[in-house]
């Protein structure tokens, strides 16, 4: 299932043009990080992918579906959107019920729902809390519940909206683990993030937006090295990338492994 954004323009009522002529193709199974300063259009763009926003002009195709012709609830079968604040969606009495909400809306049979819920619980390390009330758990775990409630929908594409903001290192690691699992399962994962290190380490493609337009779009390895271009939208390169450059390493390194291998090569 490919995602095709074609010449997308979007203007908010009240006349702020948030997107200008954005064209992007995301193929099934890609992991994409969308970066850029606040106001560059990241959230606006991503809200078009599950139909929450409709193009002012241009088209957004989710597979064969035109987002202007299908409801948000129907698009939700293909694109799951994980919102930033779990407290703005949790309402069930137990963790298990909360996670079952999505698949239940799809009308799946009881056994299938049970399997999906258990799978999701396991991915976020909450299997033993299935019957707990979400509000009895800390905000760290409520974030995981919200994530699991989208995972259980088993959509082809998962969108993460600023997943690591306000999270501690342990939760960031859990989220990274979920992303790699999704990658293994061939899912498309799209994230909006300010945490460029998280983006670099877990996503293979980086799209930088500025003032409603695509500034640069390509493999993480090349985009993250474009320091001056990224600076236009107030994005700093990842820490290890910066370190690598300052030490004279030519390749743009994205994570610890790449960095250390490059240092080893330098030494030889």
């Amino acid at each position, binding site marked *: 299932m490919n995602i095709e954004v074609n010449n997308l323009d979007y203007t908010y009522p009240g006349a702020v043009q948030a997107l200008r002529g954005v064209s992007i193709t995301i193929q099934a199974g890609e992991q994409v990080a969308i970066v850029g300063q606040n106001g560059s259009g990241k959230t606006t763009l991503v809200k078009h992918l599950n139909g929450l926003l409709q193009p002012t002009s241009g088209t957004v195709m989710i597979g064969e579906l035109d987002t202007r012709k299908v409801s948000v609830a129907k698009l939700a079968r293909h694109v799951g959107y994980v919102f930033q604040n779990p407290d703005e969606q949790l309402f069930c009495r137990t963790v298990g019920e909360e996670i079952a909400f999505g698949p239940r809306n799809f009308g799946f049979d009881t056994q299938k729902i049970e399997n999906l819920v258990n799978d999701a619980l396991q991915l976020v390390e909450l299997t033993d809390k299935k019957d707990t009330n979400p509000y009895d758990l800390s905000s760290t775990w409520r974030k995981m519940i919200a994530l699991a409630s989208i995972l259980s929908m088993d959509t082809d594409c998962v969108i993460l909206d600023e997943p690591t903001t306000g999270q*501690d290192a342990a939760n960031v690691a859990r989220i990274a683990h979920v992303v790699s699992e999704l990658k293994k399962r061939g899912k498309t994962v799209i994230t909006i993030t*300010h945490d460029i290190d998280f983006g670099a380490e877990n996503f293979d493609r980086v799209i930088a937006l500025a003032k409603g337009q695509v500034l640069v779009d390509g493999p993480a390895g090349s985009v993250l090295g474009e320091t001056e271009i990224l600076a236009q939208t107030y994005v700093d390169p990842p820490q*290890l990338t910066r370190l690598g450059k300052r*030490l004279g390493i030519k390749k743009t390194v994205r994570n610890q492994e790449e960095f250390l291998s490059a240092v080893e090569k330098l030494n030889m």
Partner: protein
Amino acid sequence: MAIVNLKQVTYTYPLTDTPALSKVDLQIKEGEFLAIIGPNGSGKSTLCYTLAGFIPHFFKGELEGSVEVAEVETKSSTLNEWVMNVGLVFQNPFNQISGAKYSVFEEIAFGLENLGVPREEINPRVEQALIMTGIDDLAERSPYSLSGGQQQRVALTSILVMQPKVLVLDEPTSQLDPIGTREVFGVIRSLAERGITVVMVEHKVEWVAQFADRVVALYEGQVLMDGKPREVLTSDQLVGKGFGISRYTSTAREAARRGLWPKKSELPVTLDEAITGFKK
């Protein structure tokens, strides 16, 4: 001279069994910049609330041990008196706006109005505070029209204007974007340079390493380590417990294992330290 003195502080929230803080001893000197690190659930926010007097005066529960600020013990004081000595700023900028005031200037004056400061004094104090935190250009704006970083600086200024002896900041940048984070850290740093006693809970360890005088690592409600930033932040004791560790530190640690990091060198926390080390 210790302005803050915590002795064997143990606190358990109402309706829970496990203490959130366990036998914590902590002394803070006047003018010190102390950073507190720890995984979620380690007691960082509890410690902040205890320093700020909300424990035990707002959150009931059991508090044992002694909590002294400027030689006054918390149990013999009231929250109203305590907030004049200890100011608290926390994560969510939006929730710290009173909603009662039309402009940033008035918002900052709010605390002084509550304390009964005479009108002639309020104006100059607010102006001074605005300049100290660099937001005098925002004075006439509505607090709700500001960005997260701006709102957080307004919250900071609103507390600072009350001239507390100790400023407690609980993850002040965790909900902000990179620009907002930079703005807020800039202000905190200049305050610390002026000699204000600051206690800050923070995950962004590279920044902490550059500007804090001292770091306390909390784990499961207890003080795990207490010492100089670079010592604590590169310690092996932090590994595998959920602490946020600088990528420079963990990369250098792995590099050392592969013989790529100079043997006698201390592990780095910041970019510059890493550069220096790897160059060798």
